[in-house]
């Protein structure tokens, strides 16, 4: 352990602004991406499924799911 105290850790040898700024920006951006994505997932869950009458393509895909191919 090369930090003698918490304030020593925060100072980062005089580079606190740059080091914590870098990690701060990183986690704010990744956190922001996660929050926006979770919002999108909630919004998407409200879209009602509107199944169209069975087309040939749809029948093919249904068969793929149930492994009948």
């Amino acid at each position, binding site marked *: 352990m090369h930090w003698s105290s918490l304030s020593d850790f925060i100072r980062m040898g005089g580079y606190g602004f740059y*080091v914590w700024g*870098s990690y701060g920006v990183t986690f704010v951006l990744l956190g922001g991406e996660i929050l926006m*994505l979770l919002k999108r997932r909630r919004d*998407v869950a409200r879209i009602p499924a*509107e*199944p169209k009458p069975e087309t040939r393509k749809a029948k093919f895909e*249904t068969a793929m799911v149930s492994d009948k191919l």
Partner: protein
Amino acid sequence: MSTRRINWYKYAAPANFYPLAGKMIPFFTVVTVLLFIIGLYVGFFVAPTDFQQGESYRIIFIHVPAAWMGMFLYMLMAVYAGLGWAFNARLGSMMATAISTTGAVFTFISLVTGSLWGKPAWGVYWVWDARMTSTLILMFLYIGFISLQSSIDDPRRADRAGAVLALVGLINVPIIYFSVQWWNTLHQGATFTARSFKMAPSMLWAMLILLAACWMYSIAVVLVRVRCIIREREREAPWLAEAVA
């Protein structure tokens, strides 16, 4: 012994991929959190102080993984976009769209952290050095891909237009990678190559663990996003009505 072969084409169908992706997300989320905790611990409490740069070098643990992810994800995005275009496989195109946002986020992180490291190391936040300029171009390629796709209403036409842009822009990736060799840059050369590590093992480990954390993060986030895209674009498919019922 089972001789049953795996039908790889099966998972190219959104109907099969959607539930599979859903099952994988919790695993990648847990691994991401664990790797970030371990990587940050090694980076801040195990890795020693750099004899030249003092503590400011600790930015490397996030800067290098973010820069690599920006390039890896661009290549992955271009490959998926190309597959989606060449084989008319819409899941490939959806994957490319899902990857683009995360790639842009990591490229932006690499530019900002690089800038914050540049100030104490070189005395300036930004110079028009070959590596930094080519990384900025990578950022513009991501922004171009995203805005081009969102400007076209028909999803398959948007996929094709995006694929052309992504594949043409691929030329920029080797330019970024070799920029420190081809031009006399202010940016330092490769920190490690296959033959030599110019750093203490604990420093290297912190960087590699955080790189793995960024990979796991990207996979988790892209899987969640591609599921959103599938639900938006396949709402008329009968299988989806069953899957989300």
